[in-house]
């Protein structure tokens, strides 16, 4: 029978094996963005795994079985909690792990264990369930302000359609040019699309999942899936990598079955529309662009080529690459719901992205994630290096017109 106090209870079999499989080689530190800006090995992936193994030993080891579970040092638990929440959960460590530990999934599950023990989450992350319950979004902003500040007046939303667009909370409240660009481009493609009313388009659950607060997830996800189902949706389009990630990976689990629609990232839809000439690039751009892969889009769900195809289709554009791109991209600092708690780390990481874009000679830094968009823009303030930042659909919306086919 499972020990109710066990540290292993919330982890799957393969995750427990992953904890044991860490060879402590430390290769992952070279890829950890938090290490880049803090240089503190105590919050590194192998150290977190080593400490969590100690916790499991304390509750599941031989001594615990013979003499009962001992108390784990409170200070050690608190230090671990801080370390696991300081992580941006970007998953670069796992991508480069010599044994392939799936850290982008492991860290949130370790966070969930800390939440069960009343130690996590940290700071304002703890307010998210209450805010989502009250307002539908983790920012605590009124539902009435979700779409109205940015939604283009000339775009029509269908009552029901095969296609639906989910704007997401971060885009709607913190990255208006991005979601406005999404809607303008979808409208230009010309296929009717529907959206839920602002009070019904609640949080996708990602900030709760990533911070280990899983209690509300089932309810939120069922509400959203049933609402789209009621509108006859066959394809749900979203531009936020975090939303897309949880929709694809976790919505079916919390919904209890396969989703009644497929989920697509907007860059996939737009790339196809350009290829099929339903969307035409009517203007060019004589610029060098550099594209930053969002961690949860590239490493998370494998959408890497489509944003590049879209950018390369713009006449005159020269597309540059970061040294680490695609599945190996470096986190901009806003991941893991850590950006508002470990603000200085996030700004420093964002500035590394800006510095590299400037060093490569890019005219514009192209992003495709609302969290990246908000934080990298923030990191630019007061920084000695400057580059224009643009969201991929924001950029595209000024250059496209409807095609003939």
């Amino acid at each position: 029978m499972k020990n109710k106090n066990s540290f292993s209870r919330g982890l799957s079999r393969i995750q427990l094996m992953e904890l044991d499989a860490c060879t402590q080689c430390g290769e992952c530190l070279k890829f950890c963005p938090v290490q880049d800006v803090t240089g503190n090995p105590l919050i590194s992936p192998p150290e977190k795994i080593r400490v969590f193994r100690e916790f499991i030993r304390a509750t599941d080891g031989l001594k615990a079985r013979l003499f009962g579970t001992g108390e784990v040092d409170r200070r050690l638990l608190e230090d671990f909690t801080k370390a696991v929440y300081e992580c941006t959960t970007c998953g670069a460590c796992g991508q480069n792990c010599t044994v392939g530990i799936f850290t982008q999934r492991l860290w949130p599950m370790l966070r969930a264990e800390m939440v069960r023990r009343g130690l996590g989450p940290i700071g304002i992350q703890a307010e998210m369930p209450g805010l989502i319950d009250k307002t539908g979004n983790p920012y605590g902003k009124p539902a009435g302000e979700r779409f109205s500040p940015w939604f283009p007046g000339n775009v029509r939303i269908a009552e029901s359609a095969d296609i639906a667009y989910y704007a997401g909370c971060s885009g709607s409240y913190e990255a208006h040019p991005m979601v406005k660009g999404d809607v303008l481009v979808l409208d230009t493609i010309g296929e009717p699309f529907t959206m839920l009313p602002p009070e019904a388009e609640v949080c996708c659950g990602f900030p709760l999942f990533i911070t280990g607060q899983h209690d509300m997830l089932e309810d939120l996800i069922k509400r959203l899936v049933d609402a789209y189902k009621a509108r006859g949706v066959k394809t749900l389009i979203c531009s936020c990598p975090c939303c897309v990630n949880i929709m694809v990976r976790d919505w079916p689990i919390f919904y209890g079955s396969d989703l009644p629609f497929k989920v697509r990232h907007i860059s996939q839809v737009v790339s196809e529309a350009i290829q099929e000439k339903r969307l035409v690039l009517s203007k060019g751009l004589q610029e060098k662009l550099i594209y930053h892969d969002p961690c949860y889009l590239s490493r998370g769900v494998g959408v890497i080529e489509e944003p590049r195809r879209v950018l390369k289709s713009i006449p005159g554009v020269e597309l540059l690459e970061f040294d680490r791109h695609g599945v190996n991209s470096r986190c901009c600092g806003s991941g893991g719901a850590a950006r508002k708690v470990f603000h200085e780390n996030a700004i420093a990481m964002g500035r590394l992205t800006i510095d590299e874009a400037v060093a490569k000679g890019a005219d514009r830094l192209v992003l495709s994630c609302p969290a990246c968009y908000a934080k990298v823009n923030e990191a630019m303030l007061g920084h000695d290096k400057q580059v224009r930042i643009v969201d991929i659909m924001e950029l595209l919306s000024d250059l496209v017109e409807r095609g003939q086919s």
Partner: protein
Amino acid sequence: MDILLILLAYIVYIAFLVRVFIHARIWLTAEEQSVTYRRPLSSINTCGITALDILFFRKLFANDKLLWPGSWFFHLSLFFVLLRHLRFFLQPAPACVAVIQPYGIFAGYTLFIALVLIIAVRLLTWKKRYVSYSNLFILSVLLLLSFSGLLMRNFFRPDLLQAKAFILGILTFRPEAAPSGFLFVFHFLMALLLLPYVPSHIFSAPFVIAEAARREEGIGMMMHEK
């Protein structure tokens, strides 16, 4: 002294088995993960990647060209050294164990060189390097084991028949005296010291590597195939 060594061997061995049992129990009583996008292990790509990762440490090679030769030759050498040592544990020793003896002897040298390289890389390339003290401890014990083994092979040969009788005596619960000489006792004690610290990744890493290959190969199923 011999009795103490024999008792210690039984205690360490039992502790090792208990440890393996506890780990296995934790794994076996845990739940399977709910949803996965992964290719079957039977697919050629997944199988190939898994084999490359397990046999040739593909990811380590991609990340660290300096550590890779140390790590790869260490594991390969250790495998052959352990195979060579089977002659002390099996009576009669099978023909295949006799065949690999020359390779085992050669592996004894490469094992030592590989360990020195690993420790040097770990300690000398400080920048962005996580130093695991337990890992360094294990490497140091292995280095001492390897060094004492080489000394016995080349300079201070113990009575091999007596050594085999001693080991077989422990395995068959009919204790025999250990061969005289400090080096054999030291080598044996280092082996006993190592056993409780045998990293658990040797049991779990192959499964995790296979799972990672299935997951990486399956990433296209999420957004591109459905």
